C-alpha cells in the first residue's frame, strides 16, 4: 500500500501462461486487470463461433466493462493469454463508492457508451456467424446449423414420431422422440439411446418427423441430422429441415407457431 498516491487498494500480480483463460464470458466478476506484459486476446463465443474482438497489450485494461455496467456483473467477453502474460489485478471495492459519487450526467453518458459497445459486440457476433455460414461446406453443415438455430428458435417439449427417410432397408417402424427446440430451419430432437437398435443416428441421416404442435397444428417434415450429442440416457440431435414443402402447409404452420406472441 502506498500512502503517497492515496491508494489503499491492494494490487495483486498474476501470471498466466500462453493459452490460459483469464476471464470467461458469462462468469460473475468485477475485478479489473491491467496488462503489465504479454498479450491478451479478447473474444466472445456465440453459438459455438469464436468472435475475436481485440488483442490487448501492455498498459491496456481488461474487466472494466463489468464494473461500469450497472445492469450486469457478468463478463461480456472472454480473455485468453496469447503469450506468457503478467497482469495486475485489483478488486474495485473502493471505486464502487467513488463511481457512485460521480455526476449523474457523466454516468448517463458512460452508460450509453457502454451500451453502444455491447451493441457493436453483439453485431460482431452476427457478422462472425454470417461469415461462418458463408464459408460452410458439406463438412461445415453442423456449424451452419448451430449458428442459425439461435434465430427465432423456440424452446419446446413436443413428443413426435419419426422414421428413417434415408434408407429403404432400415425398418420403417415409427420411433418416438421429443422436439426440444424448433425454428424455421430445423429442430433439436432428443431421442432415447434405445432407439439406436432400430436405426442409426448419424450425421447426414434423414428422417420423416410427425408431430402435433401445441397450437394443435400438425407438422410433417423431413429433416437431416447435422449434429449428434450423446448425453447420459439421451441423444440430442441437431436436425435441419430438408425442405418445408408448402403443399403440406408446414411453412405456414411453423411460421404461425414461431410468431412472437
Amino acid at each position, binding site marked *: 500500500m502506498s500512502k503517497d498516491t492515496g491508494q489503499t487498494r491492494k494490487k495483486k500480480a498474476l501470471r498466466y501462461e500462453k493459452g490460459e483463460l483469464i476471464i470467461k464470458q458469462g462468469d460473475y466478476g468485477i475485478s479489473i486487470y491491467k496488462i503489465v506484459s504479454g498479450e491478451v486476446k479478447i473474444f466472445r463465443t456465440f453459438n459455438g463461433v469464436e468472435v475475436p474482438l481485440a488483442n490487448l497489450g501492455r498498459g491496456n485494461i481488461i474487466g472494466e466493462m463489468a464494473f461500469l455496467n450497472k445492469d450486469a456483473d457478468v463478463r461480456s467477453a472472454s480473455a485468453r493469454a496469447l503469450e506468457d502474460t503478467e497482469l495486475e489485478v485489483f478488486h474495485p471495492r473502493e471505486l464502487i463508492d467513488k463511481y457512485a459519487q460521480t*455526476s449523474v450526467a457523466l454516468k448517463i453518458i458512460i452508460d450509453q457508451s457502454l451500451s453502444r459497445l455491447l451493441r*457493436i459486440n453483439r453485431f460482431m457476433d452476427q*457478422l462472425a456467424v454470417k461469415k461462418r455460414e458463408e464459408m460452410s461446406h458439406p463438412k461445415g453443415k453442423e456449424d451452419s446449423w448451430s449458428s442459425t438455430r439461435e434465430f427465432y428458435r423456440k424452446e419446446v417439449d413436443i413428443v413426435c414420431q419419426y422414421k428413417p427417410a434415408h434408407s429403404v432397408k432400415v425398418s420403417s417402424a415409427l420411433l418416438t422422440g421429443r422436439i426440444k427446440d424448433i425454428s424455421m430451419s430445423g429442430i433439436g430432437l432428443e431421442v432415447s439411446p434405445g432407439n439406436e437398435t432400430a436405426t442409426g443416428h448419424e450425421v447426414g441421416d434423414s428422417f420423416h418427423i410427425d408431430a402435433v404442435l401445441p397450437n394443435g397444428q400438425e407438422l410433417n417434415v423431413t429433416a437431416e441430422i447435422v449434429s449428434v450429442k450423446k448425453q447420459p440416457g439421451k441423444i440430442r440431435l441437431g436436425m435441419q429441415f430438408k425442405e418445408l414443402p408448402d403443399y403440406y402447409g408446414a411453412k405456414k404452420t411453423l411460421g404461425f407457431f414461431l410468431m412472437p406472441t
Partner: protein
Amino acid sequence: MHPALHSYIVEETTYSDGEVIIEEGSRGSWIYVILEGSAKVKKRTPKGMITIDILREGEVFGEMVFLEGGKSPRSASIIAAEGQVRVGLLDTQRLIDDYEAVPSELKTLIASLMLKLRNTTSKVCSIIVAK
C-alpha cells in the same frame, strides 16, 4: 430524457434530413443530446460511407473526444436522419468540471472503455467493408 442531463442543455438546434451535425475527422468538443428525431452514425470507408448505428431520443453523442481527454478528432460523422432532428448542446465546461472531479483510477477505466469503443467501431467497419 433524464432530468440530470436536461439541466446541462445550453442551446437547441434543429438539423434537417441529411445534414451533417458532426463530421468525422474534424476537431470539436461539443457534446449533444437528441431531443427529437434520430441521427445516423456513419464512418468513411474505402467503399463509401457506412452507417454503423442509429441514435434516438435521449442519446448523447460527441462524448468520445471529451472522455478520451479531448485530443482526438471526431471518430465518426453524425448525420440527421428521417426528417428533422432537434438536438441539445450540452454545457461542455460543466461536464469537463464533472470529469475533473473523477478520481484518476476511474478515469483510466473510462478511457479504456472509450478505447474499446473506438477500436471495435473501426473493426466492425473493416469487417463490413471486407465482405
